[in-house]
């Protein structure tokens, strides 16, 4: 199967996923809204269908509908300074609409007070609007990535607390064997995903950020399901074949880049444009450090205890670790994946990922001689971005990198 065919599989599956959520609602099976952090493994194990409005926002952006929904929310006093995921998501809620129609209403909501400010407060607004119970996951924040026994114990306790909450509100019992299997599948998906990421070290890079952000859909929304494992095995096979043929994802790879922050969902063509200039994003923060951080750091689900495994995945989300860890991840990413330049997207919608970027740029230059380009915009609000201006500035940056290579 080639890349285009894989993309079609994914597109078809995504449509099917949203149809599955609607079917669950029609059939009276519980539907939970969650943040992009899930935890899907636990919820799928308990027969809950997981719906992520944040993922729906990315589809909104792709269909160029985000501006309208952001404005809908702003008209209802949601500040324009707030996260554009939240504004777009809330706008869809208020408008009872979306790129494939309105999402089915949730039976309960799982927010995450530890992840970021919007992931605590956005979900409060949604829960209030739909009059449904809200569960807020909490978690330790480890500044230096040093997880103490009581950090892990609390994270496990939060997952168990969620299981009890789901039992209470759905009547569905928590069955450890089902959960164990879901976590095992999630671990397998992550391990396969890690192999794909490793292959991006090859020159030419067989898979770029454009492809990986699409692949990420399964890790975010389907972790714990067999389909995510099958999909990544398919991608791994295709990627290995490309490596075997010496085929890069970019026609003529001239420059390898590291991209930091969330992609511009309304303009993934920025990545296509880079590729057309011979610049491949061989490594990126988003598909490696956020959900996959524990695995990127070398961790695996090998403890034998599904709660411990899932807790470790949560503890090492990028949202839960401090700048010292982020720095070392960015350094390793740029170094091991052979990047010659970096693009840091200063995202007004995401302080969690954007604060500390100057330190990361400085360290990349001091330790690896890698220069960075930075631009400011929002990942889900097109009003703050000009493609023409961006191209002009990136062009100059790419020229400067090429000159340095000569």
């Amino acid at each position, binding site marked *: 199967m080639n890349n285009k065919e894989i993309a079609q599989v994914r597109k078809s599956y995504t449509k099917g996923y949203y149809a599955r959520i609607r079917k669950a609602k029609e059939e009276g099976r519980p539907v939970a809204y969650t943040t992009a952090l899930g935890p899907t493994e636990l919820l799928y194990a308990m027969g809950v269908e997981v719906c992520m409005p944040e993922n729906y926002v990315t589809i909104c952006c792709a269909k160029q509908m985000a501006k309208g929904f952001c404005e809908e929310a702003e008209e*209802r*006093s*949601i*500040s324009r*300074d*707030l*996260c554009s995921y*939240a504004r777009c998501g809330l706008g869809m809620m208020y408008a009872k609409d979306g790129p494939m129609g309105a999402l089915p209403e949730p039976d309960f909501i799982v927010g995450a*007070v*530890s992840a*970021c*400010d*919007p992931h*605590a*407060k*956005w979900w*409060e*607004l949604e829960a*209030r609007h739909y009059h449904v119970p809200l569960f*807020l996951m*909490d978690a*330790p*924040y480890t*500044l*230096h990535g040093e997880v*103490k*026994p*009581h*950090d892990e*114990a*609390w994270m*496990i*306790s*939060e997952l*168990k*607390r969620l299981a009890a909450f789901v039992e209470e509100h759905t009547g569905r019992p928590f069955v450890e064997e089902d959960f164990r299997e879901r976590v095992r599948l999630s671990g397998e998906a992550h391990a396969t995903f890690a192999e794909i990421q490793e292959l991006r070290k090859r020159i030419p890079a067989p898979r770029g950020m454009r492809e990986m952000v699409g692949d990420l859909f399964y890790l975010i929304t389907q972790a714990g399901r067999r389909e995510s494992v099958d999909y990544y095995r398919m991608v791994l096979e295709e990627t290995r074949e490309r490596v075997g043929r010496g085929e890069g994802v970019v026609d003529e790879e001239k420059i390898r880049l590291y991209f930091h922050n969330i992609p511009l969902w309304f303009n993934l063509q920025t990545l296509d444009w880079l590729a057309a200039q011979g610049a491949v994003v061989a490594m990126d923060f988003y598909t490696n450090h956020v959900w996959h951080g524990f695995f990127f750091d070398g961790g695996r689900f090998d403890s034998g205890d599904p709660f411990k495994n899932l807790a470790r995945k949560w503890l090492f989300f990028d949202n839960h670790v*401090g*700048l*010292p860890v*982020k*720095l070392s991840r960015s350094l390793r990413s740029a170094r091991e994946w052979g990047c010659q330049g970096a693009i840091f997207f*200063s995202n*007004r919608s995401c*302080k*969690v990922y*954007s*604060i*500390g*970027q*100057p*330190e990361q740029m400085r360290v990349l230059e001091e330790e690896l001689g890698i220069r960075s380009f930075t631009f*400011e915009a929002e990942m889900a609000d097109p009003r703050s971005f000009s493609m023409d201006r961006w191209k002009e500035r990136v062009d100059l940056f790419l020229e400067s990198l090429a000159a340095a290579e000569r």
Partner: protein
Amino acid sequence: MQIDFRDVLKDRHRWALQHKQMGGLVMGCYSAMLPEELMWSCGVLPVQFLMSPGPYYGESLSYLPPYVCDCSRSMLEDYMNGTYGYLDGLMFSHVCETVRGLAGICSVRWPDSFVRIFTAPAGNDPGARRYLKAELLSLAKELEHMGGVALSEERLQAAISVYNENRGLVSELYRVRGQNPGAVEPAQVLSAVMASSIMPKDQHNRMMREFLKTIRKGPDVSGTRIILSGLLFENEVVLGSELFSILKACHALVVWDDLASGMRYRLEPVDNSRRVNPLDRLTEDLLGPQPAPLRSPAERKAGQMLEAARTYGAEGFIFLIPKYCDPILFDLPTLTRILKEKDFPTLSLEISGSLLEGALRTRVEAFMEMLSASAGDSIRA
């Protein structure tokens, strides 16, 4: 002698420096929900960063993006320029994502310094309780390692007692002011709370007792009773905020506040029952829900505001919203809706940098006129 807490704030580093001269340690603290009692019991004086609204941010500009609040800029600027050079460490309260980023920058920029983030769980379940107690014990060991005193039940009990006394005195100040707003200027009330955050509590307690004697029998004044919510930069209070002079000119009487350096500075007392271990009591006190908007639902805050309005006869609310403060911005539509449903008008002022007199005066005057006429609508500026 009449105590003026604004004078205390003008000499804000004096108390910390005295503590250091006596051989103690000083911890720079950012925001509420920190275990100050524990720090104090270990011989470490917690000192809250006081915020200036700028616009004179220099070096910090290259470390923080433009879309973060002035509070974080002020903290980083003052730390970088040496204003707080005497600190032995930094402790950040996990009240928002910007604070986390700030802690990260400090830990990277000064890798040999003691920099910690303290997370007080938002929930109140057994797992959160066990975590928090273990975290407090871990922190106590770290403080001992950096030169503090070893944690003991007796010292912690004593610290809790002196902090509780302080909370009681500040709460009494709020009560007296609420019942008779003419008894004390709003800037003095806020200055009193801010002063408490930069000095040993036993010394502040002495000042508070003297201060309360002088204000109990204040003049009766008439005016429109209002509540302030949100954040007011400390320098605005110390140097004389335009807001207070405008409120005075409009005959507005501040009867209560929900400001970050006011009532939100953890004023509920730690349960001082002697049958329970003081560490367990402190743990219980720090668990959620908490005053910080991120870790507490908006309805809870609205409930507290309505209760204060009923108790002190408030007629309207003024929200002071720091630009880029996500937790407050998310809560604001819900708060104003709930207050409006109970027929309380609200005015929301976005603040970035100093409160500009011209822009402020028009909006506040219009709002106060409306309150006087009891129109019942909300204004967002």
